Structure formats: C-alpha cells, structure tokens
C-alpha cells in the first residue's frame, strides 16, 4: 500500500540558490501543466456548489445507472445519484482528505526530523526506531482495525495515514538538517548567540523547504491512491462523496455501466499525474539551481574566436623537437537551453613537442582545464569543441567518435587529474583499476597486468605495492592516491600526459614529492607533458615551454626561460607580481569555480 516516498531525499543535499523558484516553475512546461491541473482541481473543490445544480446525495431510484444526458451530464450511479455532482463534491472531500494526511505527515515528520537532525542523540535513535516500527507494521491491519474503532470516516483514515507516512518527511528533514548542522553559517549563527529555535527557523528550515514541498506532493499523491485503494476494498466513507467511494460503486457495476469507472479513475489518474509532475518539475528546477553558472563570459551562438594575437617568444632551442600536439583556434562552448553557446575557450592555439613539458598557466576560470579536456576528448556533459582543430601526432582529434577516441585515450594521451581522491572509483580496489585499462589497451593477461601494476606502484614510490594494490581508495591518503593516478597515467606508455593541476589538492609537504616524481618519470620515459597549473613555481620547476591563458585565450607563449626573463603581456606580469606579494595564495585559488564545472556541478 505504501509507495516509496523517498525519492526526494537526495535533493535535500543539493539545495542551492532558490531564487525565483516559483517563477521558474511557471516557465517549466510540465511544472506549469501540473500547477494548472492542481489549481483547477482546487477551484473545482472550492466552488463545487456552483458547478452543478444537482444534489450529489439525491438518489433517484427510477433512474439508476443512467447514461449521460442533458440532465445528468455524466449519468447516474447505482443509487441514481448524479455522477457529475458527486464527482465535483468528491473532489472537495478527497482533496481535503489527502491534504489532511499530507499536513499531518509533514507536521509530525518535519518537526521530529528537525529535532532529531539538529539535536541528534537519543531523540534520533527513538525516532529511527519508531520509523522502522511504523514501516514494519502492516498499514492495512492498522487502518482496518482503527476503522472498526473510530468508524469509517475519511478524516480518521487519512489522519492515521498521515501518521503512518510521517517517516517520509522525517527521514528527508533529518538527513538535510544533519547535512547543514555543522555548516559554517549555522556555526556562525550559533557563535553569535542566536537561539536554537531561531536558527532552526531561519537557517535550517529554508534548506528543507523545497524538498518538503516535493515530498508533500508525493505524499498527497499517495494519499489519493490510498483513498482509491480503500474505496476498492469497500472501505470508503459512505456518508460523503469521495473518489474512492465512486470507484467502489463503479467497480461493482463495471460491466453494466463501464463509463462509471471512467470518471473517478480519470480524475484520480489526472490528480496523481499532476502531483507527480509537480514534484518532478520542482526537483528538476532545484537541481538546476544547485549548479553554478557555467562560465562568466556569455556570447551568442555564433563562435567568436577573435581577439588580440598572443605574445610569442622566439624559440631558443637550435633544433626544435618534432611536433606532437598542435591546437589551433580552439573554441569550446556549452550549449544553453535557449540555443546560445556559452564560450569558455575562445580560440586557443598551442603546440606541444615530443618529450617536452609544456606549462599551461592561468588563473581560475581562464579556460585552461577546458582546453585540456578538449584535447583528452572528455569535455563535461553539454560541452563541445565549437571550432578549431586539435592535431595529435598528425591525427585530427576533433570530430572523432567516442569509440575512436577511446583508442587514443590511455594508450597515446593519458591524464593525471587534479583531485586524487575523487578520481578513483570507490567501489573497486586500486589494483583492479590499474589492471583493467592495461588489459584493455595493451591486451595483456591479467597476471601480466598485475605484475606490471605492482612494478608501477613501486616505481611511483609507494612503499608497499602489494598492500596498495589490494586497498580500496578510501584506505589510502591523498598523496598516495595521486601516486596511484600517476602510475595509472603512465601504465600504458602514452606519448602525452595531460596533468591537470596535479598537486593543487595535496598538502604542501606532499606537493614537492609529487612534482619530483613527475619530473623523474618524464625524464625517464621521455614522455611529453601538458601541465595545467596556476602556479608559476611549478612552471619554473618543470616546464620547457609555457602558454599563459586569460579569459579563454592564450595571451603569451614561448620558452619558459624567455617568459620568466621578460614577461611581455600585462596579465603575465600581474601574475608574477601576485607571486611576489603572496607566495602561497593557492588556498583561495584552489576553490575555483572552474573546477566545479569540471565536476559537472555535482557536489
């Protein structure tokens, strides 16, 4: 009898800005449809007496099961009562009943959820236990037994049902409150001496408000379904017209007057669909608002790759090595619902030569990570290369299918991510995540791959390769995980490693070790590296050549030494100045919004 009412749980964690949610709901087509249907039903309930001249209770014994006519718009039921009149009044009572159940469930569930989530401790244990108690108790037995005690009233049944459904709200609220209980702003309020009820009211309630509305729509839907179910088993309230009661009557006459079944069934289905759509649309809007804006610069759909040409420093080497990667006029953008393209890379050109380390430097939001992902062929959902070319070892990469790219990924171009912990699948051992790509790309046996993986783990400086091999990601430290990821990146002997801020997320003490490792491996293997970073220190340490990015463009490029010796572009100069002023400013930089774009907005 009870449907899952938990679908909204995850949303609670995702609540972000809620500005103009109501307005956005009205712009969302399904949301608008749902709101219109619900509004119509409520109007129907409110103005029931105006919608029909017939008495819903008048039973005309000489006119039972009549077909629709001018007098009886939808015909009459098995007691000769006007079906339209009953439908209109049933809407009133059924919606009120469902509202009662929802209201009670929400009051009980949200209140206890707030208390349990905020104060925790014994209240939480007791509530959790009561929740499982309610869930394990056969609801039907309770409803039927209670019916015998309190009579067949719709209100009684719905009130009991409200209590039975309270856990749906409880769990939602409790989880959401647990999530924010220790957030900074709540702490701040507490420190500032704001009283608990006021904190709950002002800060915490706002977090659960929208999820509670979603849950309420779903609980209303369930309450309507329960009324129908009670009607089906002949347990509807006989004293007032209800959808369930009409269904019950219609069922017994299903084969004599099938139309009778159509009306209550349709209105129940319509109302349920409306509430389900409402919940769905609201959830969609909430999820959308939880995502940060894709980028700062917005342009029309037309691709714009123009701008001042980059400052190019002359090559210092006598015999430049062969070209490995040549990016030319690359434009990356995200399609927007309104058809426009939000551009994040505006015509980047750069080259990486075999065996060299090329630093791609710029502040957060400059588009350097997007450039790196385009080369990897792994732009986040919605992103695409809008113009330009990426030629790798003589092979044009743009326009290649996922399948074709997969042959290049790993084997030719590999990737060292920024945040080690989130880049290992938590459900599989580190060993299996190393072995799997090697078996696929190199086509070697499992045994061989394992031996190789252990070698690699030793090579990246992990003290106990066997143990690390068997470990799950959550069992190793961030520095170890990054070593594992570097091992993974070199495991298939690529020609180019794209390292996206490989040290940013690590402790300062570990950073140097990882850089040392990278440098050592690069020299040993002779692999080219495109190093994405915002840190000039790293560039100075490792790079042969540097490209400086700003606002989706390369502003200056050339041998590292030349640029360090004489930065020409004002932006490059400002970056240098910043380092001099504050050597360790990366703390704030590392929480760049451009990283959130990479993660697709998931928290």
């Amino acid at each position, binding site marked *: 009898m009870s449907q899952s009412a938990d679908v909204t749980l995850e949303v609670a964690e995702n609540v972000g800005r809620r500005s103009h949610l109501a307005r956005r709901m009205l712009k969302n087509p399904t949301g608008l449809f749902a709101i219109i249907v619900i509004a119509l039903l409520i109007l129907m309930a409110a103005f029931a007496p105006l919608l029909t001249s017939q008495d819903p209770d008048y039973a005309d*014994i*000489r006119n039972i099961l009549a077909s629709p006519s001018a007098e009886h718009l939808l015909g009459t039921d098995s*007691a*000769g009562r006007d079906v339209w009149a009953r439908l209109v009044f049933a809407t009133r009572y059924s919606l009120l009943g469902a509202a009662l159940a929802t209201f009670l469930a929400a009051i009980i569930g949200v209140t206890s959820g707030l208390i349990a989530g905020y104060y925790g401790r014994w209240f939480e244990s007791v509530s959790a236990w009561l929740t499982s108690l309610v869930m394990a108790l056969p609801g039907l037995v309770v409803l039927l037994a209670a019916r015998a005690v309190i009579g067949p009233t719709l209100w009684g049944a719905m009130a009991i049902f409200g209590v039975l459904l309270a856990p749906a709200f409880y769990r939602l609220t409790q989880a959401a409150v647990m999530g924010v209980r220790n957030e900074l702003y709540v702490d701040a309020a507490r420190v500032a001496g704001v009283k608990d009820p006021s904190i709950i009211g002002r800060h915490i309630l706002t977090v659960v408000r929208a999820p509670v509305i979603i849950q309420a729509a779903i609980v209303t839907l369930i309450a309507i379904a329960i009324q129908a179910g009670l009607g089906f088993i002949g*347990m509807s309230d*006989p004293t007032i017209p209800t959808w369930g009661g009409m269904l019950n009557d219609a069922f017994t006459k299903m084969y*004599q007057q099938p139309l009778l079944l159509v009306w209550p069934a349709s209105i129940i289905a319509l109302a349920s669909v409306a509430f389900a759509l409402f919940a769905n649309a609201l959830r969609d809007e909430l999820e959308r608002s939880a995502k940060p804006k894709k980028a700062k610069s917005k342009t029309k759909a037309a691709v714009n790759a123009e701008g001042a040409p980059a400052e190019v420093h002359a090559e210092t080497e006598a015999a430049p090595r062969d070209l490995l990667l040549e990016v030319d006029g690359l434009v990356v953008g995200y399609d927007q619902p309104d058809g426009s393209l939000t551009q994040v890379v505006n015509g980047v050109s750069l080259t990486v030569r075999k065996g060299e380390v090329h630093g791609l430097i710029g502040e957060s939001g400059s588009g350097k990570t997007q450039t790196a992902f385009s080369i990897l062929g792994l732009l986040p959902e919605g992103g695409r290369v809008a113009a330009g070319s990426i030629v790798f070892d003589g092979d044009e990469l743009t326009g290649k299918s996922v399948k074709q790219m997969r042959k290049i990924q790993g084997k030719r171009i590999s990737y060292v991510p920024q945040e080690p912990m989130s880049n290992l699948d938590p459900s599989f051992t580190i060993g299996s995540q190393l072995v799997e790509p090697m078996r696929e790309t190199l086509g070697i046996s499992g045994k061989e791959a394992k031996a190789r993986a252990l070698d690699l783990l030793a090579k990246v400086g992990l003290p106990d390769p066997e143990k690390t091999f068997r470990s799950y990601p959550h069992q190793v430290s961030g520095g170890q995980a990054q070593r594992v990821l570097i091992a993974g990146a070199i495991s298939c002997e690529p020609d180019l490693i794209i390292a996206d801020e490989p040290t940013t997320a690590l402790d300062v003490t570990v950073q140097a070790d990882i850089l040392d490792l990278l440098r050592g491996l690069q020299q040993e293997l002779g692999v080219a590296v495109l190093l994405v970073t915002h840190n000039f220190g790293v560039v100075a340490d490792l790079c042969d050549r540097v490209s400086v990015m700003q606002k989706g463009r390369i502003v200056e490029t050339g041998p590292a030494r030349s640029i360090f010796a004489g930065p020409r572009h004002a932006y490059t100069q400002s970056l240098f100045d910043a380092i001099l002023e504050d050597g360790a400013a990366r703390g704030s930089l590392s929480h760049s919004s451009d990283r959130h774009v990479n993660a697709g907005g998931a928290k």
Partner: protein
Amino acid sequence: MFSKKRALITTAAAVSVAALAGCSGGSSSDPTTSGASEGGSESGGTVTLGVIAQVTSFAAANANWANESPMMQAVYDSLLRMEPDGTISPNLATAWEWSEDRMTLTLDLRDDVTFTDGTAFDADVAAQNILRFRDGTSPNASNLGRVADATAVDEDTVEITMSEPDPALEVYLTQNAGLQESPAAFDTADVDTVPIGSGPYTLNVGETVAGTTYVFDKNPDYWNPEDQHYDRVVANVYTDSTAMLNAVQGGQVDVASVIDLTQLDQMTASGYGTVTNQLDWVGLILADRGGVLNEALADVKVRQAIAYAFDRDAILQAFSAGYGTTTGQIFPTTSSSFDEALDGTYPYDPEKAKSLLAEAGYADGLEITMPSTAALNQSWLTLIQQQLADVGITVVYEDVAPANFISDMVAGKWPATLMILQQDPSDYQLASFQIAADSTFNFLHYEDPTVEELIGEIQLGDEAAGAELNQYIVDQAWFVPFYRTDNTKVVAEGTTAEAQTGNTWPYLWTIKPVG
C-alpha cells in the same frame, strides 16, 4: 467490495426447508443446460465449483451448511437425504419411524459402510455423532436442541429421544446435523481440518489451500457409486464479485454462486445456464414496535407509513437487477400461510405515507437511526434513505464494523434495519426465528399478546393460525419486506445441477456432467 455481499448470504437459508409441507421448493427454473462439453466433465472428470465461503470447520460436530454444504457433502454422508423437491429419502439410514408420542425416532442403518480410515459405521457411531453435533459449536447446533439422547439399540439401529417434539428433526438429519464422521477422528488435533467421513470423496490435503481451493478425490470404496459423477471435485472460493465474474467469463468454474445478481447477465452471456430458487426476503425489520429506542415506531401508523414509502418494483430493479419477486410478507410462497393478496397491502404511495405520518403527529418529519455497514450494499442504504426522505423521514446511519453488525443488531442496538433474512419453510420455525418475543430477530423482544397466542396455536399444529399471524404482522407492519431475492447458481455448458429445496447450493450429487 468483496466483503460486501458476503456476511448475509453465507448464513442465510441454512435451515429453511419445505419438506414438511410436502411442497416443491422455490421457483426453480430450468436447471439443465445443453450440449457441448466444456470444463470439468471433459477433463478427466473434474468439476470445479465457485463457492463464496471457506470451510469454517471440517469437523462434523462443528459443521456449517448452506454455502459450505458442497464441501461437507463431498466428504460426509448424512443419515437421511433430501431430494431436490424436498422429499426425504434414505441414505445411511434405510428406514426411520417416529414413536406414537413423537418423542422417539428410530432409524435403521446400513451395515455395509466404512469410513475412509477403515473404521466401520454403526449405530453407536451414529449416536455419538448426533450428540456431538448437539453439543458442538455449529451455527445450527440448536437444531438438535430438543434431542435428549441418542443411543444404539443394536449394531444397526439407533434411537433418538426428544425432550419435546420437533417435527423438523428428519430435515435436520439430511443436513449438517446428520453428518457422520469416523470416531477415530473425534479427538485428533486436526479434526477441524482433516475430515474422515464415509462420503463420495476424500479431501486431498496436499492440494487443498484452505480458504481458497478445496480439492476432493473420488473415494474408490464408496458404498453408493451412483452418486459419484466425477473423479475429482474442486471448490474454489471467490470472495470478490468481480473475481467470480472473471472466473465465470474465463470458463474456470462449472457451477458458481452469483455474488452480485446485477452481474448475472454478463455470466449468462458467456454461455452459462442458471439454477434458481428463492430463499430470502430483503427488506426492513421495524423491530422497535414497543418504542424503546424510537417512540415513533411504536405507532402503527408510522410503521405503515414506512411501508407505503417504498417503490418495490424500482427497488427490485435497483438492488437485484429485477432478479426476484416483490412481496409484502415474510412468509414463503411454500407456506400454507402465504397469502398473495397481502402483497398488495402497502402499494407505493408517498402521499398516503405522509398523511399517515401527519395523523400520527409527525407532520414535520421524524428521525430513525439505522445501522450502516460495509457488509451491506451502500447504494441500497442510500436508496432506502432517499425513499424515506421523500416522505419526510430522516434516516441517520450509524456505521458498524461488519464483524459487529449482526451481534449489535440482535443485541438490540437499533430500532430498525435493512436485512436479508431467510424465509423459514415451516411457520413455527419462522415465527420462532423472526417473530416471537424471544426470537433472535425480534431483537428488541417486543411482546404482542396476539402474536404470542397465535404462535402457541401454530406450535399445536393449527395451520389457520399461521395465516392469521401473517395477516396480523403485515397489518401491524412489523416488517417492510421489499422482495424475495433470487438465489442463483450459474452452470456451465456440459454440466447440470438441480435447485435444492431449502438450500442455497444444489446438493453435490445433483451436479452431473451432461449425458
């Protein structure tokens, strides 16, 4: 919806019998159906019954009848047997005789019958079974309430002695009161679930799902193979009218109860024939003739006004799709006290009703509280409420759980109620069940000297008193009967069955394959 039409049907008509008057039962329609074989008779001799009641107990001492009779008759023999027309014929007892004073009934028993566990059937066993039934908790245990003792005279003769005469005793012995169970089963733990009888079939415990499907296999050693028409009897329990209809339309049952008469047309459209009799009357019991709970009802004019308020033809149509016969009396057509003229006593006349109410001082209307329950059809209650509202009587329904409906009613909680009640075939039975001051369904136990005197005369065998009593309670409007409802079974092509006098189900041995 499934609980609705059950509570009343299951128990009604358990004891009604027309045998004493020697009449044929009810208005049974053509029981036979034609032609092509289908269902059970074809598939290795299985007949599938669609019944509406699960077996309450398989112990003979606690046995129910009526809707459970097919399952009981499959496994047990009764001492006597009733033919479809109500005549009583030999069964386990080959001959029987009353003593002059009608205080002793002597029965000669067959000596060639053994129970399926090998135990022999004899007079001592018969005596034990009779006494066990009397002392058991069958709903009909009181049928043997006047039996003082039962003893074995010799191997194959049993003697039943009475505390007072009961002319219906032979009839009872054709029903659950006469079922014979093996004494070896009496004290077993599963006496209520595993029957050991001498009947034509044995319960297949392995395939039976209690409450849902009862499977019976042919008893290979049965003493009367003529009554075994099938190798297997299956009884499926359907509590929901829609499920029953689906089973019928899908051809899954050979003989089935019609739970909702308004579905009968769909059933016959699927090629089923019908077997029909009439056992129950549908209408109001105006029990508060003494005005204990509602003083208005003490006024005969008010009661008559209520009787005038109902359009019986329309009610019959609305309640049972016309399957029944309108009536104004609770006596069955088979009773000599039945008087067709009485049916016209209270024609539909709202004006007359209103003027009677005005005469009684209720020109401004009055209020009556009646029970409403999920065991009664809600639209029936609504229509009754409306008919009375049309003449100025407000019915206030007080809801009661189905489990409490009958008990609260007979405990005298309401002044009046809608009810479906059996039309006991003998006037005395009927009077002592529904009319007499101490009867169950005179539930406020109103005592009317005229009535009590007439009942006394009936007990002494005065037939005229019955007619007089009928006339009196119709005039006094003790009841407002609407119609006698059809009791209908649908029968698949290839199967025949005969309507049984006094029982809702055809007796098992009348259910046969065609040809």
